[in-house]
């Protein structure tokens, strides 16, 4: 029977992956996990035995493969992943788009490039375990969470390990793939019950990238931990705070604060309202949900086409603005929602809304740009506040 890594241990593993020094963990760290995982390097004998830790070191990230130990995890495999500063460069590359995986899943190019840099070596290291592993546990924090998600998807689609069960644990992970990818991975991992996505309510990283990227598991079943305040926080992205928040959580069943779903009716109600609101985590989540909702209506309801024209001098924001403008002009049942979205963004920006507001691609682009700039300033303020205390 498959055993799940408990919340605190999963968080501690996601934390110690940052504490690797020249391919070695220190003796105290190895001792901490010795009853569950063998984190000792083959060159460092512990109790007369050679370790089994495998380390993949790339400029863009690290991968660690360790064998399970003891009654609980004997016969299991642990894959710990983490990104580096370089991964962030890729993630923030404005020319990055969507890449197709070998299994034709559509994922974020930056994260996928990083995963690909480790994949060949990972494949070599894992192939010897085919048919011998009960469960593979993929664990990662932040960008490592994105890599762990891609790894879990790859293991499920490649048949590299045969029939091994795959479990995924992420902490403060950004979104990784499109809705199709999220749907597929959710389905693959026991309809999402083998996915343990943990995030602090105010952690800023899980909020990005926004549409067309979606979290896994696709619907609910994510573990939203409480964190103070209502503004995006850099501090509560840190692994240290995830460990502290989970310090008293013995098993996943005790974590009852699952991510609250945002219903379509709530989105429609929010879009239809004209009240003033502040840009908080809640309203940012609502803006994201509303954007997804309206874009879906425009793209799939009105059949608006967005061409891939990178390199033709048209920016991505131009394209989004043009798509929304087309949706506004094409059909009445989409135009109302584009108009309402723009009005809600204007409220967020503190702008006065004219009665005869004319929605053009130019206006949409202006509003989206201004909104993003405002979010930028807000995130900066939040982070500055944390460090000026």
């Amino acid at each position: 029977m498959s055993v799940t890594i408990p919340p605190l241990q999963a968080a501690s593993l996601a934390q110690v992956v940052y504490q690797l020094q020249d391919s070695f963990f220190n003796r105290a760290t190895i001792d901490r996990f010795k009853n569950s995982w063998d984190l000792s390097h083959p060159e460092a004998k512990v109790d007369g035995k050679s370790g089994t830790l495998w380390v993949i070191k790339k400029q863009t990230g690290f991968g660690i493969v360790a064998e399970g130990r003891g009654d609980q995890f004997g016969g299991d495999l642990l894959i710990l992943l983490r990104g580096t500063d370089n991964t962030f460069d890729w993630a923030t590359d404005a020319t990055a788009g969507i890449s197709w995986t070998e299994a034709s899943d559509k994922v974020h190019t930056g994260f996928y490039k990083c995963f690909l840099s480790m994949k060949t070596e990972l494949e070599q290291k894992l192939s010897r375990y085919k048919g011998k592993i009960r469960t593979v546990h993929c664990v990662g924090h932040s960008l490592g969470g994105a890599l762990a998600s891609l790894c879990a998807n790859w293991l499920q689609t490649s048949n590299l390990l045969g029939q091994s069960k795959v479990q995924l644990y992420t902490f403060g992970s950004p979104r990784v793939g499109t809705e199709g990818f999220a749907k597929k991975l959710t389905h693959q991992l026991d309809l999402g019950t083998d996915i343990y996505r943990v995030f602090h309510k105010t952690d800023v990283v899980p909020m990005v990238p926004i549409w067309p990227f979606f979290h896994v598991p696709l619907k609910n079943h994510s573990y939203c931990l409480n964190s103070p305040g209502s503004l995006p926080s850099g501090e509560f992205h840190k692994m240290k705070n995830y460990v502290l928040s989970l310090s008293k959580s013995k098993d996943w069943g005790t974590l009852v604060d699952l991510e609250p779903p945002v219903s379509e009716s709530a989105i429609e109600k929010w879009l239809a309202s004209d009240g003033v609101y502040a840009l908080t985590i809640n309203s940012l989540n609502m803006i994201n949900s509303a954007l997804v909702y309206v874009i879906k209506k425009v793209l799939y309801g009105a059949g608006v086409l967005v061409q891939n024209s990178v390199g033709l001098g048209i920016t991505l924001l131009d394209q989004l603005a043009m798509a929304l403008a087309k949706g506004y002009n094409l059909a009445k049942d989409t135009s109302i929602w584009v108009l309402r979205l723009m009005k809600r963004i204007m409220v967020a920006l503190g702008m006065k809304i004219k009665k005869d507001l004319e929605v053009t691609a130019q206006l949409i682009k202006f509003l989206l740009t201004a909104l993003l700039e405002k979010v930028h300033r807000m995130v900066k303020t939040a982070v500055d506040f944390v460090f000026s205390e």
Partner: protein
Amino acid sequence: MLNKIVPTNLIFLSVCFLLCLAACSNSQGDAVAMNKANLFSATEGVITLAGAPLQNAEVIRTVRWRDENHQDSTATDADGNFSFPDLMSDRSLSVLPSEFNAFQKIIVKHNNETFLLWETVKADPVSNGELEGEALRFTCELNEEPRFVHLLLNSIETRCHW
């Protein structure tokens, strides 16, 4: 007809959000300039060998954080006492995507032998983060074998008690 071309270019907003983060993490330098990381908290200790104070022994403290390497040393007095002040980083902290991890070690040299007193990875940049709030006041016996102590954030190998 519903066009099924994937709107790959509409990731712009996503990228913008990430750019926000990147810009923020870069621009935080100024904001946190006064907020230097504590790489090794002030430490006081008494070293004994078979119960007797170890006199005039060289105690060496090392710490590595990112590309910063620090080393300082002191000597025990007639009662076996030694101390180190807080060791602060040269640079300020950044927020994303870095995780704070300072690799610490204290050793003592005696009769051409080296004894490990303390080794851990400090995961919190605040003062006394090593012991999660408790001050580093040690009594260390060289005849003791090093043991492992596991706190919530830190795992420590040490010959010392506190």
